[in-house]
């Protein structure tokens, strides 16, 4: 899964680092480091991070596929993704 963060836009709210700590990490008070090609197993968490970003700075490849698969899952109506 490929991702990129528009770091002009990023303001260091760190929501992504809470939601997907294996992919995003704060570096200093305001800087962000991330894995640009995270493991596929992280997709759900990364999708949550992208959705939660207050400045919408995270772009992820193929997010539609996640939305589609969760919409067809038995309990996934409405597209809300949650792993509890």
């Amino acid at each position, binding site marked *: 899964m*490929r*991702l*990129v963060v*528009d*770091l*002009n836009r*990023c*303001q*260091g709210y760190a929501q992504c680092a809470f939601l997907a700590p294996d992919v995003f*990490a704060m*570096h*200093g*008070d*305001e*800087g962000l*480091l*991330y*894995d*640009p*090609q995270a493991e596929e197993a992280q997709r759900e968490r990364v999708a949550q991070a992208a959705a939660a970003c207050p400045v919408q700075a995270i*772009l*992820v*490849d*193929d997010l539609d596929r996640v939305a589609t698969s969760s919409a067809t899952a038995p309990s996934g109506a409405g597209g809300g993704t949650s792993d509890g």
Partner: protein
Amino acid sequence: MADTALDQLKRSGRIVVVGASLAGLRAAEVMREKGFAGSLTLIGDEPHEPYDRPPLSKQVLLGKADAERTLLPRRRDIDAAWRLGVAATGLDMAARTVKLADGEEVPYDRLLIATGVRARPWPNEVEAELAGVFTLRTREDGAGLARALAAGPRRVLVIGAGFTGSEIASACRERGLEVTVAERGNGPLVGALGGVIGAVAAELQRENGVDLRTGISVTALEGDSTGRVRAAHLSDGTTLECDVVVVGLGAQRNTEWLAGSGLGAGPRGIACDAGCRAFDLRGIVTDDIYVAGDVARSPHALFGYQFLSLEHWGNAVAQAETAAHNMMSESTDRRPHLWVPAFWSSQFGVNIKSVGVPSMGTEIMITQGSRSERRFTGVYGYQGRVIGAVTFDNGRWLQFYEKQIESTAPFPPPFTTVDRRPDGQRPIPADFPDPSVPTHGPTITLSGYSPAERRIATFTPAGH
């Protein structure tokens, strides 16, 4: 409905994009989004799909990401014919073809040039070939340098304290490596941010254990009998032992392939109008050739209509979007590229961000925070207006200053800001180096005619 030339182009035209990196990819996506159904060819000299470069000097060097794994995410499918690993070597504007290194000629109806820049190599070719000597621009550069740092060299020498050089030095210190930075100017980042901020950056480097030497240039690199770099000779007569050398002397624009084509291309980039249409050598705008990204230089209404060339990630995206929009629009629907320059850097644990054109500024005022705390906002003034801003760990304020720049707000700022300190009560000279003295280079190059100047320095009459 009349079938216009634009309709035909959208339905069955041939669009060629030269340059398969960030700008080329984003432009291709926007063209498809705007309904382009014809053939789309992306030509790139590197053998890779478009990948992201900023991580190469940051997380990759820290061993937290893999240089081979920074491919850019796609916004949509672009259904393109990719010609990767083959450089464009020529342009025939009359025949509307791009010539490739393998001899093929690719015809186009509309062309987008986004060939970007490359790292300026070490000028001595023999020394540049020594094992352990690196530049940092490509994926291969990043992978090689990351391996060299992971091997635990005794000392790294970084030549040039621009953003890339400073980020590399930061990564070295974070990895516990000894690092010397040799900078010809009087401090790090002075070309982009001026001497006041350069002094803060210098303190930051030294506090973090960098052996920073300013006002020093490297005169020669010396190899051992196996062809590995072992030492550098400095302009103060000293010799420094080092087993990794990173050359961070800025970038050169990839325009050589356009020599003789008749396009207005040269070492400063490819001149284009505000709508991203390229000028030919005579200063006449072309109908079918567009430019975007680091290789473009275009006039900007907010900055005295100076021609700006910006080596900024965000500019590559924004200009690509505008170019692609305009390529798919009637002339009355086109829009100008009026993006306010913005960039970021992360070094020594501090997040440095900037908007506007600091290097146009003659004065700077620390409007919030304090330099000694490494957390502040500096505002640049030019002829009584706000022209740029920089933040150290204060990025949330930048949007505010971006609006100040866009609205040509007065400088010094008359408002009383929060967190204003005594040292920010009045402007001080921003202390930019003389632009005629070469440095590792600012990330913004001003190269247009400025009404404040009484001469045109760069005009070369054709045919003389």
